[in-house]
């Protein structure tokens, strides 16, 4: 049986506990679940909100490709990813990744891998709305994120 992969791209918030429960409910063969929760930071009060633009269709497809690759590579029992779009304020959730595996390192590596590729390959773009009302800039891609992805090259 192929490991279940669940990917959603949505405007509304998500429920971490419900996602963990959906992934573990009714089975006793999972030894480890790692979750990554990405939140909007207030940047020391300078940020009013982020506006997340995405490429509908490709966003889901690309995150699914990444999750399936992680399942295959690390032997995961399941992987879930939920990414929000639209206006997101400081303290709010942006992205959630869950991985399940028999042993802990696969779940850690799988979630880490999914986040590194999601950052650099999933078609989302962040625009900043500043607290001082000035026109927001598009967030620049970071070299550090490319470097993080390169760690996984075989």
């Amino acid at each position: 049986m192929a490991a279940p992969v669940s990917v959603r791209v949505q405007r509304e918030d998500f429920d971490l506990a419900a996602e963990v429960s959906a992934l573990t409910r009714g089975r006793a063969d999972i030894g480890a679940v790692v979750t990554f929760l990405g939140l909007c930071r207030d940047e020391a009060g300078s940020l009013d909100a982020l506006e997340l633009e995405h490429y509908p269709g490709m966003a889901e497809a690309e995150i699914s490709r990444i999750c399936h690759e992680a399942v295959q590579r690390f032997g995961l029992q399941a992987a879930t990813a939920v990414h929000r779009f639209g206006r997101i304020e400081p303290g709010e959730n942006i992205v959630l990744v869950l991985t399940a595996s028999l042993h802990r390192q696969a779940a850690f590596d799988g979630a880490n891998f999914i986040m590194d590729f999601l950052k650099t390959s999933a078609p989302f773009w962040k625009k900043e709305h500043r607290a001082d009302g000035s026109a927001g800039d598009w967030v620049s891609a970071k070299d550090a994120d490319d470097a993080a992805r390169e760690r996984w090259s075989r």
Partner: protein
Amino acid sequence: MSTVNLVYFSWVRERIGKGEETLELPAGVVTIGDLLGHLKTLGAEYEAALEHQNVIRAAINQEHVDHGEPIAGAREIALFPPMTGG
């Protein structure tokens, strides 16, 4: 001449001034790189959007491709800056 559906995101969209359009392409436009070169001849807004051509990312039918990728048969071509999700 071939017809192609183009979609733009983030500051590529903002600078071009629209999110999507359908264009007729001349015969010499074979790859994504050729397409970028052609678009830059269409006006100052395209020039501004695609000025730093090497940073522009492209997808054909919702999959990432390099600038050397042939565009023949593409249903949808997307152009956008490096991604900043997560």
